[in-house]
């Protein structure tokens, strides 16, 4: 295995994050006041990696003997993960003090989770998908239970761990069946093998199990039971990370299986499955979110609905769908990071719950935060001209191109339902007077505010120039 110097430049993002983990670990070991340094260090590290991966986006190659690819979509995913993680680092700086989890291990685990996601997104071999998934998941299990004295946090960690390891079992079983059917774990050779001969039924069963496993990770409908409790119980900064870049990482693995199918003889093999999953997720998420009184639970159910919209792109199984999903993931990541960032500022410390009622009169108490939250709610509901609208637009267009009209109609219907609960928050913020009981103190945090403003700017920018971004994604 000889890597040339170009190869080293191409895998530099991975090397940088790996080195970052080691540096953070050393600092954590030998310094008593490491947390302040580690927070800024992880912010700068992820920002640097995000910049570098976007800078080298054209270096498409395959390294480590076909174990991983670089450049193109992989680097765009690198950018989403690392920029998202940089924003999470900003949001966490003051939040982890309030949540009483002011420990350096938080940032080490954050960096490790990002490394796992990057390995997963760049994998072209099922072994690497599995290792990346495990690295990411283990860090998330621990991060979800980081508030060790909080019963809800413990519950979230345990639930996530038990169900997560159960579905990892599904994924590994699926991989084993795929290996049995094709005799290889490399995506390229699996699909070349299958196009040569008639596809054995074993392959379909294996892929089905693989898809079911990842549907758990992206929180699609029948596999969503963990989502509300985990999102509510975990520290809010961790929830922000799990629901955005964690979901993007799981989708990158699904795309890995789906992209080779697009060019094959019958690309729509799994369209019925994805259509049903996406329809169920959209309708279920939107309707149940209507009844929620806690904002974190509401965002959890809306996350299920958004997984449904993204699955429309997979059901379409064409290039527009694939690039639509990547665009949607980026847009969703930044708008949800912003929304959770504001939630983390407003939620009280201790057991006070983030009820929607506690947002009453926010426009008087803190007009800036109220305005930003209104922006994120608008874009989450898919109103133009923000990023959320174009995300939905591209996946719906892809579905129409594939001749799958009714799922696009269902998606539009579900967006209309979801607009109700997103706009309800805006109504509560602007038109309801705050009563004394819910008048909790908003945390003063310049770093969190910076993170939220950066996400807001990105959401607006992606809404202004969606075409050029999609063209960039499409060019690979």
């Amino acid at each position, binding site marked *: 295995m000889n890597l040339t110097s170009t190869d080293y430049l191409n895998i530099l993002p991975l090397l940088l994050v790996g080195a970052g*983990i080691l540096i953070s670990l050393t600092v954590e070991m030998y310094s008593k006041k490491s947390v302040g340094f580690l927070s800024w260090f992880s912010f700068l590290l992820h920002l640097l990696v995000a910049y570098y991966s976007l800078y080298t986006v054209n270096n498409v190659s395959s390294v*480590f003997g076909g174990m*991983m690819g670089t450049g193109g979509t992989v680097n765009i995913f690198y950018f989403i993960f690392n920029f998202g993680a940089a924003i999470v680092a900003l949001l966490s700086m003051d939040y982890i003090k309030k949540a009483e989890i002011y420990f350096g291990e938080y940032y080490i685990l954050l960096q490790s989770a990002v490394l796992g996601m990057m390995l997963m997104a760049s994998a072209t071999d099922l072994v*690497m998908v599995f290792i990346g998934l495990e690295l990411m998941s283990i860090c998330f299990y621990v991060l979800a239970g980081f508030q060790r004295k909080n019963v809800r946090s413990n519950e979230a960690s345990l639930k996530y761990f038990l169900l997560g390891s159960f579905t990892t079992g599904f994924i590994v079983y699926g991989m084993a069946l795929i290996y049995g059917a094709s005799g290889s774990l490399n995506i390229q050779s699996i699909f070349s093998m299958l196009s040569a001969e008639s596809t054995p039924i*074993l392959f379909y*069963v294996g892929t089905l199990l693989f898809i079911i496993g990842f549907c758990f990770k992206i929180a699609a409908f029948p596999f969503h039971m963990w989502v509300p409790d985990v999102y509510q119980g975990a520290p809010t900064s961790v929830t922000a990370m799990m629901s955005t870049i964690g979901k993007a990482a799981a989708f990158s693995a699904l795309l890995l299986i789906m992209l080779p199918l697009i060019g094959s003889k019958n690309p729509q093999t799994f369209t019925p499955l994805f259509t049903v999953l996406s329809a169920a997720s959209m309708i279920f998420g939107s309707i149940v979110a209507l009844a929620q009184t806690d904002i974190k639970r509401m965002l959890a159910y809306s996350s299920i609905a958004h997984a449904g919209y993204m699955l429309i792109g997979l059901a379409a199984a064409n290039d527009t769908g694939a690039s639509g999903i990547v665009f949607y993931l980026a847009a969703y990541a930044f708008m949800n990071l912003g929304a959770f960032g504001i939630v983390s500022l407003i939620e009280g410390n201790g057991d006070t719950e983030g009820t929607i009622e506690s947002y009453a009169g926010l426009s008087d108490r803190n007009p800036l935060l109220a305005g930003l939250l209104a922006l994120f709610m608008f874009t989450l509901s898919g109103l133009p001209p923000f990023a959320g609208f174009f995300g939905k637009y591209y996946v719906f267009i892809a579905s129409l191109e594939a001749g799958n009209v009714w799922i696009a109609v269902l998606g539009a219907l579900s967006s209309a339902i979801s607009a109700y609960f997103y706009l309800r928050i805006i109504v509560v913020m602007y038109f309801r007077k705050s009563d004394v009981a819910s008048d909790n103190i908003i945390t003063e945090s310049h770093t969190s505010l910076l993170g939220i403003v950066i996400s807001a700017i990105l959401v607006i920018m992606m809404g202004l120039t969606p075409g050029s971004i999609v063209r960039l994604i499409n060019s690979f």
Partner: protein
Amino acid sequence: MSLETILFYFFASICAVTSVLVVVRREPVFSALFLVLNFASLAGIYVTLYAQFIAVVQVIVYAGAIMVLFLFVIMLLRPEKEKSIFSGNPTLQKLSIGVGVLVFFQLIYIIIAGTISSGKSVAAEQRIRTGEVEFIGRELITNYLLPFESIAFLLLAATIGALVISKKKFE
């Protein structure tokens, strides 16, 4: 019937019987000990498949380290005070039996109707060579170099995570 086939049926029957016993025993420690036997017989099956190194790993890691962990968990939880999951919930019992039967028939169907990729049969010498530790080592540092190094990061994260979760006093 060759010796290999006899050995396979021997280990496979031990494996099947013990895995049933793991589920039906009421005393959790007994279940755990039957699981050790189950893992050991799996190691036997690996040997009949010429995967010697995997067999040794199975005994060292699964029957050794993981079972120690299982026993510690049982001792930590004081299971004699825990009610059986099924005792107050017959619906759950029926459901779990149903799922088990479903998985069983699915596997049977795959084995009978599915075509396991043919043309992969190789000579016994070749298979023995593939199972050798040196062969696995060569694969690890050539083709599987990236997974090899990634697993180091995985284990590092697991170490830190385990300590964060389980430490008594954390600062």
